[in-house]
């Protein structure tokens, strides 16, 4: 079958890019590489431009709230006349036709729910098969994690080795830097407090891991984007690059870049393809960009809220062994008082069991502060 000229637009607006347009002749029309799984790689910013080029500026892209006159039922006759004229102009029909269209195709012609009717209540006398099925299913609550779209771009980070459910879903703006996403990813390993505190339980640890180990990188399409904002940040990706270059392992040449220098618009990525976020030296998260779209009027319009957390996997929190009520804050090993090893305690129960009223340590044990993964719930 002769294909028409489908890939028309060339990749414009690439002048400011550091990397040249890929030699694979990438057109920035996203299309499947593996059907239903992921797309070929393309430049995000250029893709956005392709869309904007096809849309009618204000009409399609404006983020302003609709004017009051656009609401049904609130229009006067004069406004109708105006609207009819616009319709007649756009469709190339007469004014009478436009008026007729408004009457015939108007929203009030769609039979909607009458006021006071509850869609949850299914009438008894229905003979629609689907309604019957729905009735039976109304009791079953199946919750599946859905992946929402994020404004302009959707990223979700999850642990692959867990049950393949996304841990976090974020909305990110194309103009935001990678570092902003990095800062918004909540990982429990960031909060870990190192050290054994059985002798000094009251000493609030000053630093959490996040402050101590600041290095991190993202890996997208052959490039490691390292966080280099602080002097303590190290290039975690170097190990990998050296390993890959030491022998001919069949990987292409990896590149490094600075995370803070790139926005999402600058990226060359595949949709639906698993990438990597690594921090704390060995804590790895799989990052998949599930969708990219133009921002819409109904999206959250407050830029300061982005990256916006949309969905979060709810985790069971480990409760204190004693009271079974509060989330565990301590974990002990080799504990003569504990029935199991390791054993988890909330703060109150921990102190009551292991220390006397003066705060002296009783018995032998090792105690570590514990941060439960469900802390972010």
């Amino acid at each position, binding site marked *: 079958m002769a294909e028409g000229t489908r890939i028309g637009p060339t990749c414009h607006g690439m002048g400011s890019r550091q990397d040249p347009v890929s030699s694979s002749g990438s057109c920035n*029309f996203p299309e499947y590489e593996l059907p239903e*799984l992921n797309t070929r790689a393309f430049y995000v910013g250029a893709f956005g431009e392709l869309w904007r080029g096809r849309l009618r500026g204000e009409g399609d892209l404006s983020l302003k709230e609709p004017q009051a006159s656009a609401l049904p039922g609130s229009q006067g006759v004069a406004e109708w006349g105006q609207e009819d004229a616009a319709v007649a102009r756009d*469709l190339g029909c007469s004014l009478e036709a436009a008026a007729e269209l408004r009457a015939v195709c108007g929203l009030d012609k769609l039979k909607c*729910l009458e006021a006071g009717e509850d869609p949850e209540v299914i009438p008894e006398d229905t003979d629609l098969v689907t309604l019957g099925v729905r009735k039976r299913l109304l009791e079953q609550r199946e919750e599946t994690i859905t992946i929402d779209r994020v404004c302009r771009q959707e990223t979700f980070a999850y642990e692959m080795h867990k049950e393949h459910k996304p841990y976090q879903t974020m909305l990110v703006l194309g103009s935001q830097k990678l570092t902003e996403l990095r800062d918004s990813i909540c990982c429990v390993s960031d909060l870990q407090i190192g050290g054994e505190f059985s002798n000094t339980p009251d000493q609030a640890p000053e630093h959490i891991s996040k402050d101590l180990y600041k290095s991190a990188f993202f890996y997208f399409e052959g490039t490691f984007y390292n966080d280099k904002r602080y002097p303590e940040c190290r290039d975690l990706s170097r190990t990998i690059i050296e390993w890959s270059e030491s022998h001919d392992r069949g990987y292409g040449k990896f590149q490094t870049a600075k995370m803070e220098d790139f926005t999402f618009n600058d990226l060359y990525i595949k949709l639906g393809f698993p990438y990597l976020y690594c921090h704390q030296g060995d804590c790895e998260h799989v990052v998949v960009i599930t969708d990219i779209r133009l921002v819409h009027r*109904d999206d959250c319009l407050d830029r300061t809220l982005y990256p916006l957390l949309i969905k979060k996997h709810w985790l069971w929190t480990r409760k204190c062994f004693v009271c079974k009520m509060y989330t565990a804050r301590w974990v002990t090993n080799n504990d003569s008082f504990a029935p199991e090893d390791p054993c988890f305690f909330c703060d109150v129960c921990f102190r009551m069991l292991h220390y006397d009223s003066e705060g002296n340590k009783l018995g032998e044990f090792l105690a570590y502060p514990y941060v439960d993964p469900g802390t972010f719930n």
Partner: protein
Amino acid sequence: MRNLEKNMFTKEALALAWQYFLPPYTFQIRVGALYLLYGLYNTQLCQPKQKIRVALKDWDEVLKFQQDLINAQHFDAAYIFRKLRLDKAFHFTAMPKLLSYRMKKKIQRAEVTEEFKDPNDRVMKLITSDVLEEMLNVHDHYQNMKHIISGDKSNPDKALSLIKDDFFDNIKNIVLEHQQWHKDRKNPSLKSKVKDGEEKREGNSQESERCERAESLARIKSKAFSVVVQASKSRRHRQVKLDSSDSDSASGQGQIKATRKKRNKETLKSAGRKMSSKNRDNMQNVHKEDKSLRLSMPVITEEEEDNESFSETEFTAPKRKRKSRTKNLV
């Protein structure tokens, strides 16, 4: 919980309806899908409303469809599309679905209902009006060049005679035959549609809209069967102005004589798979037309007699018929 259900349901419903809005479904199905989208979008209970996802690669098709609607004067469908767009009911996305590399999840292949699809006319898709026009231009240009570089200006050198001179005509006639065969195959249903339209002329505006729609539909169908309806575009580097009747779907095959040519047979073999054997015999009597009188180029002599006057009448008559139908619409 309710909200989650509402959102999921609406998303799924819209995505499902959207599939039918894109090719390869027939025009009728696509209009139906548009109505479905309009209804689903506006009656949904989600607040804020779930949007209809459009991928970049599909947008051009959508615009083309909108233009078709306007051209065919399906004002109601065009109106609701316009309304959807004005209401910002679309999300302009990269891909139709969210992708998350779910390898374990069983990929549900959407079953495409076969009867909703347009018949896949690969012959027509291969030999389009553009292709035919281009071929004609190249052919004539080539003949011209042969004349120019030959010693004897009126006849090209024998040494340059490397192709069948009537190659273009043969292809064109084969294609026209094929179209006619298609048309004849569909003819019974087409005729009944038109009749229905005419019977329902009385009644309120909605009824007349429906019959007008039926008429427009019939018109569009007959349009779809012709290779070229519009006049040819002009080419900058060539001065040839094609007269539209040349490559139009004149249905005068019955009266076309033919000469048996070797190339004929070969093209028949590749393009003739879809044709019935009866047609194939007819095809071998293909005749080529003389276009030379219409061109502003120097005359290229051809062997057979021309049939052009016949085809011209054939062309204008249907055109006139179409015009009269148009007037009856709003």
